[in-house]
């Protein structure tokens, strides 16, 4: 038995391997089976020998004209300062400059329409503001230095207006960001009908300002619905004219949140969807709870979006003036008197120098705030990339 297996294991040429019939004339004349071609076997070399072999390996010849030749200093081309050479260099420089100019020109060309318009309708007005802020009045062009700024910075209306604007922004913007994030997390936690809720929440964005104002009046005025409800629920509840009380800012904040939460939430939802799922899953495998997962992973990925939403909310917090103005008119309750009211009123009172210096002050503050925000964002962005 043993021998038979061994025999089977030996490869004997039966014509299956070479494709030639064993008994044929070709097979006989071709080769002797003993005359096996010598196989060059890899010789195990020591390290030194290997290095030597590498160093002394035959050099490739005739591959490139300079290969294997020793270069003498004579052979290295030295560019002499001939007029032709100079011309050539100049041409090259010119071409390079032309190309750069073309690049710049193309992109400036794309920018031009916008830049021209912005120059006329935004930069020029700002410059005019700057000019009038140093003048006694638009008609009387005497240079008065910083007296207008002194006047505006000691103006009580301006101070209280900027305080109100600042507190409104400081409270409502973080609130808008955090609440929107919470709602986005809620909708993202596998709730059925997610897209339906999303469109519901986006709806307030489209309601015309006028109807918003009308509805808020119906709800929050002295004889409004909210007072009616509180009167029915609690015996002897005091009737409050909401928009003329210390709660006025709260009512406006409610309006602001109602209007902007949906939009912010959509931004957050999109950012949450773009977080790689594998990371969250592996964290869950390693035993990280939902809270830990949120603070260690999701927040990290969300940080650019948080900045973005913050800036958008800041813009929208300035835009809420429209609603406040339509709800309460030129002179609202004290804690609703915003910077925009101040400017509007100075516009109607024709006190342009005060208006312009106030606007410039506001501009400077805004530049500082936004600059800080962007600086922080660029730092955080780097963090995320790393």
């Amino acid at each position, binding site marked *: 038995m043993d021998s038979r297996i061994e025999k089977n294991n030996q490869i004997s040429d039966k014509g299956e391997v070479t494709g030639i019939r064993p008994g044929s004339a070709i097979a006989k004349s071709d080769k002797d089976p003993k005359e096996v071609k010598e196989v060059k076997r890899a010789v195990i070399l020591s390290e030194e020998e290997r290095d030597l072999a590498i160093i002394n390996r035959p050099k490739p010849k005739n591959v490139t004209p300079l290969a294997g030749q020793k270069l003498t200093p004579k052979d290295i081309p030295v560019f002499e300062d001939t007029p032709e050479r100079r011309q050539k260099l100049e041409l090259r420089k010119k071409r390079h400059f032309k190309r750069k100019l073309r690049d710049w020109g193309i992109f400036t060309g794309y920018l031009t329409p916008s830049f021209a318009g912005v120059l006329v*309708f935004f930069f020029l007005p700002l410059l005019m503001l700057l000019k009038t802020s140093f003048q006694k009045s638009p008609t009387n062009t005497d240079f008065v230095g910083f007296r207008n700024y002194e006047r505006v910075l000691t103006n009580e209306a301006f101070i209280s207006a900027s305080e109100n604007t600042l507190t409104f922004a400081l409270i409502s913007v973080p609130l808008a960001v955090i609440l929107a994030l919470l709602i986005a997390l*809620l909708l993202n936690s596998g709730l059925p009908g997610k897209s339906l809720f999303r469109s519901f929440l*986006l709806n307030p964005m489209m309601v015309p300002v006028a109807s918003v104002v009308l509805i808020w009046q119906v709800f929050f005025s002295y004889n409004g619905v909210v007072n009616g409800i509180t009167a029915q629920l609690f015996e002897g509840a005091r009737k409050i004219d909401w928009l003329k009380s210390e709660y006025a800012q709260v009512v406006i904040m409610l309006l602001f949140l109602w209007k902007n939460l949906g939009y912010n939430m959509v931004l957050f939802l999109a950012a949450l969807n773009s977080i790689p799922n594998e990371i969250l899953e592996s964290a869950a495998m390693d035993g990280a709870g939902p809270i830990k997962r949120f603070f260690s992973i999701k927040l990290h990925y969300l940080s650019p979006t948080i900045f*973005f939403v913050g800036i958008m909310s800041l813009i929208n917090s300035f835009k809420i003036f429209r609603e406040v103005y339509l709800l309460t008119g030129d002179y609202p309750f004290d804690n609703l008197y915003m910077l925009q009211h101040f400017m509007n009123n100075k516009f109607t009172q024709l006190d342009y120098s005060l208006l312009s210096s106030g606007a410039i002050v506001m501009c400077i503050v805004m530049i500082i705030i936004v600059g800080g925000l962007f600086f922080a964002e660029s730092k955080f962005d780097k963090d995320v990339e790393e």
Partner: protein
Amino acid sequence: MDDIKRIERKKQATLARRHIYTQVKKPETFITSMTEEAREAFFASEKKRIQTNLKKRKIRNGVITGFGIFAAVLISAFALIPIFFTFLNSFMSSEEIVANYKVVFQSMSGHATEGATYMSRMPVLKLIPEEVTISQYTTLLFMNPEYLFKYWNSLLLTLPIVAGQMIVACLASYSFARYRRKRREVLFFSYIILMLMPFQVTLVPNYMIADTLGILNTVWAIILPGIFSTFAIFLLTKYMRQIPSGYIEAATLDGASEWQIFTNIALPLCKNAIFALTILLFIDYWNMVEQPLVLLTDASKQPLSVFLSQINEPELGIAFAASSVYMIPPLLIFFWGEDYLVEGISRSGIK
């Protein structure tokens, strides 16, 4: 048989040679130590335990999602009530509306002294009208051409601004996204500051410039600053900077000109953002009030939004229907492009 023995022997020899094969006694475990019946009973109890656990977890998850849905419904109700309120009230007759909400307006400024006499009365918040009429709509659309004119004014103001701003913004943001040098970045930053400026800041100089250009009290006084507003540029640049540079390099290597790269690569990739911005801008400018109020003194040129915002007691009857009709274009444009809006403002569609 011989064969098998031989293989077995060989295997043992190899294993022995390699010092791997050692016979290990299987350790006694909890399960193997039990008798057959005890084991069965143990398995049954374990099964039961796991099932109850699963049930508990299911119930807990159900409760949590229930709470979630409850919260979501509450929030969306908070968001939707005003819209329903406007829409349903638009089917009331104007007498009913005046009867319901007269109290509200009498307590407001100008009627402060009279308000005291109405202290006992409450406004009636009704969602469903007593009798459904479309009388408000007929007065709005057929009886009085004034509203339709104002509607047309709104369209005339909004559409050019949105279209113009989108064209200008596409070009400018392509420039900001592709050519990033220090001076450009400074310019971009100043654009952002301009975007943040409230309208009131540059009110006076804008007024003066419109005056010198001779476009005061024409639609151009609003359209031109609107077109060059920088809001769209900010968003689009943020979006365009996410286009992988590889796409653009590949196109340049294939010999595409800048314009071809712009139209064939940058714009299609930013399609979502462009649609989203169109919606946002349309809604924004559809609702503008302050600019027309200041720059368009002629009442016949003012859009419906200004009229709606100045509604008071006499026109109260028509207010809800006008608001509903006014809400239609934004709603239509929203439903048309909701998916774009969701994808586009996210800034993550390209990757």
